[in-house]
């Protein structure tokens, strides 16, 4: 059971039927563009701010760099948000919570990995308690590099996401192939979501771990493969 994709090239029931009517598709393309325009200019943000990038996220939301200009407000609950910005280091104890909150967000939803801790775990990635990159357990649409990225980089990331939404809904989005192994970079054995040689059981174990979170907050572990 693959971990679900964010709201990408979905086939819509109403459109499917309407397109069969003669002449309706001309009207529908305009309607779709109108909906895309409305969707991308009101991207409400769910700030998964765990550490330093959270402070830069606050600086981006404030008066000097003002994220409101591109229509995105930070909201407290996942139920009202479209974009989850993962700002900061995700530890092993926090990862099930992030995955659960990602699942609780209504579609269509997108994810921005802000900061090198969220993208690859930065210099913490070799440590026992840090998840090496958020895209090992959830689909990420835009990566904003930096430690921490300047607020204007984050706003550029949001603009990049808006372009991506437009192209995805217009169907002209080309999925970039994953970066090849750069100079023998030692990648942790848990590959990214898109890696073909990723062990499917890992996604299943990650989902089980989210479903039965322990009451005291411990993530109930699936049996260790190498134990």
């Amino acid at each position, binding site marked *: 059971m693959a971990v*679900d994709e964010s709201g990408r090239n979905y086939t819509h029931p109403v459109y499917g039927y309407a397109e069969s009517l003669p002449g309706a598709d001309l009207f529908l393309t305009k309607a779709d563009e109108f909906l895309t325009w409305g969707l991308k200019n009101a991207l409400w943000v769910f700030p998964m701010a765990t550490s330093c990038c959270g402070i830069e996220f606050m600086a981006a939301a404030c008066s000097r760099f003002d994220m409101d200009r591109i229509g995105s407000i930070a909201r407290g609950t996942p139920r009202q948000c479209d974009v989850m910005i993962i700002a900061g280091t995700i530890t092993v104890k926090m990862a099930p919570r992030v995955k659960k909150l990602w699942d*609780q967000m209504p579609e269509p939803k997108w994810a921005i990995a802000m900061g090198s801790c969220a993208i690859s775990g930065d210099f913490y990635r070799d440590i026992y308690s840090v998840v090496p990159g958020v895209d090992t357990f959830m689909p990420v649409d835009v990566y904003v590099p930096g430690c921490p990225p300047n607020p204007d980089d984050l706003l550029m990331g949001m603009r990049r996401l808006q372009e991506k939404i437009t192209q995805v809904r217009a169907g002209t989005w080309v999925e970039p192939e994953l970066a090849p192994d750069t100079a023998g970079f030692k990648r942790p054995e848990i590959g990214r979501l898109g890696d073909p040689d990723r062990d499917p059981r890992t996604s299943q174990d990650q989902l089980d771990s989210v479903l039965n979170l322990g009451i005291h907050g411990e993530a109930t572990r699936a049996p260790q493969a190498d134990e």
Partner: protein
Amino acid sequence: MPTPPMAPSPWLLILVFLGLSALIAFGTIFAAWALRVRAKVDLPTKGLTYECGEEPDGLAWLRFHPRYYVVALVFVLFDVEAAFLFPWALNLEALGSLALIEMGAFLGILTLGWVYALKKGALKWQ
């Protein structure tokens, strides 16, 4: 004098008003359902109650202290009062000064109830 045939009967106006409001109310709900984006995989965690990422522990169906019920009652008192004030205020000049005295009495009685609630300490929680 029969209403001129041209002017629509008031009942028709009410029907149109109700129809329009129903259209708007249910129309938006239908649009939200029709244009929604379905996830490829609906995970069980989506339906869980949101508790800051944690597993909700214990029940939410609990017995609460009666002081919160009293606060709700005091709110209803003001809500009803406001509900009556609006139509009265709209056509005050048509009703003349008598309505003013009646509304004064109505507000006086309600204020009495409010003072009584305050004296009984309805809003004092500790």
